[in-house]
């Protein structure tokens, strides 16, 4: 049976690697993997070169470096006993539980299977850690340490469950752990050195972990540490397999908790997690009129019920700031005002991420959306309208408070002369289309790369996911920069012309701002049109495995 379990574990690892490689046939995965690899190569390559001398000194069994590493390891080994979770068992997937718990497999077999399954992530973690330390050749030692530590953690988990059966709960365990740490610290302080008998005795075993993990340890000590760490791992495995606990029940509880966490994360993304269920709709939906209003109405309800929490926090802070403004001296008013001005600039960037009640929220229901009697262009525009409305209101209020601090509560001067109601209006009418550009970009990302932006059961890992994030972030920055360049080019001559002919009159604002605004608005319109056309031709079937899981 052990052979069968080892076979399943090895085949699972092999299939996982093969799946990841096969996915690279898809250009999107390949590009993101290349970006991720390039990023890691850049970061870690630099680390290898820069840090290789950090641990160049030989670290002997009695060196101070070894003492510190052993001390840290001792703390880790001790602290896990104070962890609050005291269910026995191990975390398994639903299918693993169905397969393993019904089969004639001993607990040792299940633990062995779990240990084998964990080896690929452990190996990757070991390599990453050593590369970050600049000593990738030490990956083998780090792998020994991580593998043995995983067995130790499993054993402590079973022991915590056993202690609970003996009515020794979290508080008692925490108290004992804190008492031990306090006692050891007191003895060390009294002795004035790490080289005291108590600490040396307690850190004897952790010292082997430290020796296996650290670079530049003499070969004989390294080999000895590998042996000791492996034996300790095996002992932990044997204890885990034999301790008297409700292993199956505990595994079910742990696995259910993990599944619930994943479900909650996915629910938050698809709008299933609702903070304020009973908030009424923002307005009564009339029976006739443009159908797009129905989409806006729906998304505004979503904004209120799902995205209300940030709105409540923002408005609470703003209300406080408004009241506060009446009591602060001009100097403080200036600081608050400048801070608010900074926030006004940040809102378009933050808001597009914070208020995502648009296509991003509805992507899991795209099949339903595609049955609606609306062209892609109108549907996309309607979907984006609700977050735009919310962002515009937030931006307007922030600008109003900025004016309150920097214009009305400041003595006449340079700042008060520039921060006028007119300039606030000017900033607002620029901020709204910029918010629109950013919203178009976020929606384009979810439609063009649904597999990158949605959580699913088969999540990409490692290089691919890092690369995806980089591609999206860089793409957003580049698109934003490119879209703002034409408006910026037009803005300067528009200001000069306005200043030449309309200086000091209200016409100045209109002449200076309308040309660049028209360009940004035109870009938004083109973006929505293109996105709409893409939506119309979007074949959900090609993305179903990612979206609908």
């Amino acid at each position, binding site marked *: 049976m052990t052979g069968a379990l080892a076979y399943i574990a090895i085949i699972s690892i092999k299939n996982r690697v093969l799946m990841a490689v096969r996915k690279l046939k898809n250009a999107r995965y390949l590009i993101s993997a290349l970006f991720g690899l390039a990023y890691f190569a850049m970061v870690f390559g630099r680390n290898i070169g820069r840090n290789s001398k950090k641990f160049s000194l030989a670290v002997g069994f009695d060196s101070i470096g070894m003492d510190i590493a052993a001390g840290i390891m001792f703390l880790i080994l001790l602290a896990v006993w104070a962890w609050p979770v005291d269910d026995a068992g191990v975390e398994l997937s639903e299918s693993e539980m169905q397969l393993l718990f019904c089969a004639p497999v001993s607990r040792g077999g299940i633990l062995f299977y779990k240990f084998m399954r964990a080896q690929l992530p452990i190996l990757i973690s070991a390599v990453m850690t050593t590369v970050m330390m600049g000593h990738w050749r030490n990956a083998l030692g780090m792998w020994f340490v991580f593998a043995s530590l995983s067995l130790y953690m499993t054993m402590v988990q079973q022991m915590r469950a056993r202690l609970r059966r003996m009515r020794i709960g979290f508080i008692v365990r925490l108290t004992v752990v804190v008492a031990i740490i306090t006692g050891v610290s007191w003895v060390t302080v009294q002795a004035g050195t790490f080289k005291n008998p108590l600490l040396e005795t307690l850190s004897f075993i952790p010292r082997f972990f430290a020796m296996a993990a650290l670079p530049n340890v003499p070969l004989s000590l390294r080999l000895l540490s590998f042996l000791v760490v492996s034996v300790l791992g095996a002992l932990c495995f044997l204890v885990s397999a034999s301790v008297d606990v409700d292993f199956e029940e505990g595994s079910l509880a742990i696995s259910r908790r993990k599944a619930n966490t994943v479900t909650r994360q996915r*629910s938050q993304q*698809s*709008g*299933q997690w*609702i903070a304020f*269920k009973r908030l009424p*709709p923002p307005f009564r*939906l*009339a*029976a*006739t*009129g443009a*159908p797009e*209003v*129905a*989409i806006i*109405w*729906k998304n505004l*309800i*979503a904004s209120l*019920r*799902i995205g209300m929490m940030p709105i409540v926090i923002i408005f609470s802070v703003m209300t406080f700031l408004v009241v506060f403004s009446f009591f602060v001296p001009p100097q403080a008013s200036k600081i608050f005002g400048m801070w608010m001005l900074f926030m006004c600039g940040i809102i378009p960037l933050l808001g597009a991420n914070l208020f995502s009640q648009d296509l991003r929220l*509805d992507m*899991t*229901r795209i*099949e*339903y959306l*595609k*049955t*609606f*009697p*609306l*062209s892609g262009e109108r549907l996309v525009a309607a979907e984006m309208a609700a977050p735009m409305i919310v962002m515009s209101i937030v931006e307007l209020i922030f600008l109003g408070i900025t004016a309150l601090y920097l214009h009305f509560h400041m003595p006449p001067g340079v700042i008060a002369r520039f921060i006028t109601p007119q300039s606030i209006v000017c900033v607002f009418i620029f901020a709204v289309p910029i918010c629109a550009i950013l919203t178009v970009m976020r929606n384009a990302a979810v439609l063009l790369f649904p597999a990158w932006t949605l959580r699913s059961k088969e999540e990409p890992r490692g290089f691919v996911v890092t690369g995806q994030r980089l591609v999206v972030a860089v793409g957003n920055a580049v698109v934003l920069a490119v879209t703002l360049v034409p408006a910026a080019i037009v803005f300067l001559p528009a200001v000069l012309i306005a200043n030449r002919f309309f200086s000091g009159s209200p016409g100045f604002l209109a002449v200076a701002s309308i040309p660049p605004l028209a360009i940004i608005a035109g870009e938004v319109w083109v973006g929505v049109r293109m996105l709409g056309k893409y939506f*119309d*031709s979007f*074949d*959900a*079937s*090609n993305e179903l495995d990612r979206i609908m899981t």
Partner: protein
Amino acid sequence: MHPIEVNSLAKNYGDFPAVKDLSFTVKEGEILGLVGQNGAGKTTTLRALAGIHPPTSGQIRIKGYDIREDGVDAKRHLAFFPDEPRLFDYLSVDEHMQFIGRLYGVADFRANIEPLLTEFDLQDKRKAMPAELSRGMKQKLMIACGFLHQPGVLIFDEPLTGLDPLGIRRMKESISRRAKEGASIILSSHLLHLVEELCDSVLVIQNGSSIAYGTVDDLKWQIAQGRGDVSLEEAFLRITSEEAPSK
């Protein structure tokens, strides 16, 4: 011109042909049963009809509108009911109905909501959110939303999944009533007794291709070949087993 006309429909997923050269029509008041084994291409066909998946080739016309060229007009006349109801989790039952009413421009949708909620036993759940509904209730809500704009073309994918016995009876009555009122209906189901009971004609597909198409009685007669009466289930099994080796 028939309300549903499908000519040489083909749909590929990458290199895999899920539906091949499928042609059929559905008249006013007719119920067509779409049957086939798992993976035969039933759901793909229905999704293409609903305008969700663009067909690789071929033509689909709903009430005379091409689903690709005049998709918006075509969709105004149809309602698609997927096997898995995907509702908006942040809208209540009542708000779902209002939303669909406005989206399809139903002039008096508020007056039409009440009878539909009563028909589907949802009148006590008006304020409930989807998370508070059972799977069967979600299915009923999805169907009530679809009926609100009184579409002339109804497409059901496994309509009875998750319903209790009373719900099944009511659903069958609802489907029959809409057909009698002139709606053209396609339903896919593995429940062959349901297909036999409700449908006027049957299209059997296997590996994406049509292997039998005709009225229920014709199909049964062809299979029986004068050797007594056979059920649709028996006919289906014989047709698919005859076809299977050649694939």
